């Protein structure tokens, strides 16, 4: 009985999310304290958070539409519900990531550069750019899954996208208009994804 209760909690999504979140907060704090002496690039951890998130978002979106869409429909989840759940999951992930980044900035300022303001410490154009890239790349993964792109091609394209993004982030400064273009692309992709999932004819395998 006790074991069953424990398993029930352990398999609960909210518990798992909460545990991961608390672990992340703890690790960020440890990382800042450890990196204090070596004067590491202050945005490195932010890149890591959004880089990981983009990778996970891309693969999650691709797998959802390529592998799991049909079985979800078969078991009785409608297309609209699937898309709504997907969208909510992506948004929750983004909000959690933004909170982690905000927490990191706050702790970084407090521990390392107490004299400077957050605006002086961090490039906010990049702070906007990274979440938008996460959304766009995830939505592209969603389309790749729907059009049943092959796994090898998927990873090849993913590598190209990641390389391109790394080059952009490191070597180019991000202008505000790029963020606006990205935002428009995200909105358009969101609508395209909705139309695709509603109208797509799922083939027999």
């Amino acid at each position, binding site marked *: 009985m006790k074991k*069953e209760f424990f*398993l*029930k909690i352990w*398999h*609960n*999504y909210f518990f798992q999310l909460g545990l991961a979140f608390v672990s992340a907060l703890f690790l960020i704090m440890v990382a800042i304290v450890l990196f204090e002496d070596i004067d590491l690039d202050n945005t490195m951890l932010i890149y890591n958070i959004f880089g990981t998130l983009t990778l996970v978002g891309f693969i999650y979106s691709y797998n959802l539409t390529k592998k799991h869409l*049909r*079985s*979800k*429909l*078969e*078991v*009785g*989840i*409608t*297309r*609209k*519900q699937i898309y709504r759940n997907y969208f909510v999951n992506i948004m929750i992930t983004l909000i959690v990531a933004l909170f982690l980044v905000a927490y990191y900035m706050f702790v970084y300022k407090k521990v390392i550069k107490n004299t400077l303001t957050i605006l002086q410490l961090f490039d906010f154009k990049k702070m906007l750019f990274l979440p938008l890239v996460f959304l766009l790349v995830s939505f592209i993964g969603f389309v790749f899954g729907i059009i049943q792109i092959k796994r090898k091609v998927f990873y090849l394209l993913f590598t190209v996208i990641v390389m391109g993004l790394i080059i952009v982030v490191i070597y180019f400064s991000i202008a505000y208009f790029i963020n606006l273009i990205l935002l428009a692309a995200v909105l358009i992709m969101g609508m395209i994804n909705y139309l695709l999932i*509603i*109208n797509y*004819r*799922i083939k*027999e*395998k």
Partner: protein
Amino acid sequence: MISLKIENLKLNNYLINIDFSNQQAVAIWASDIKIVGEFFSIIAGINKNNNTCFYYEKDVFDNKEYFQSRVYFDFRKRYLSSLKLNYLEERFRQKYNIVFNKNEFRKVSEILDIRGETEVSNVCSYTKTGNTFVNYALTRSLEKSNIIINNPTINLSIKTDIDIIASGLTDKSKYNMIILGPDNLSAFNDKLDKIIFFSDFNNGTIMADNKDSLIVVKGVPEGSFNNENIIYRNDEKTILLNKLTRSELKNLQKKGQLEIISVYQIDEYVLRSDP
């Protein structure tokens, strides 16, 4: 009472008109197995039907009410990678908001000895027979009143196993609307209310009752027949629903061209194409 109505659905070359009623077990048979899968994807509301399929007069496509009441499984496919019942119960509740009756799953597992068909390592891998067992147990465990099952006895060879699954899937005390795409129609002998044949000959459907019979005629039968009853025809034989008059039957019998079989025996006479 009619729950699912199909009106003028065009699928490949077929024009389909069928009514599915409550408390009925219906089987769909087509010489091309793939067609059954495509048809099920449409009547399950997964693919669009151009406003031709209705569940209580509402289009079935992406219809939330209909989706909540039905499940569609193709037993060739693998749906579960774990047999941990607590885990499954939680997963179904959290991911799909579906009740998973683990006691029912346990009961079916014991009857069919699913563990004997399973190799457990970091994931469960089943034999082909085991996969059919698991899918059957899953179907029984989900609290859905309408079921659409394709290939329900696939990869089964032992008669008792086949009987358990055939009886379980046609159990009207548990299910309201039962639509099956049997890989082996004879497994459901006397358990169905209707059998709907997709006719290659007239590109429509032919409905037979449980007690109806079929006529197998060598080659192309002589005399005038009602083409509406021809289910299958090739160079060697013609199979038609037995709606012939006595004199027509006698004529054919005299020429020794005719064999009368149960509707459930059609698979013995037609080698169906596998996708």
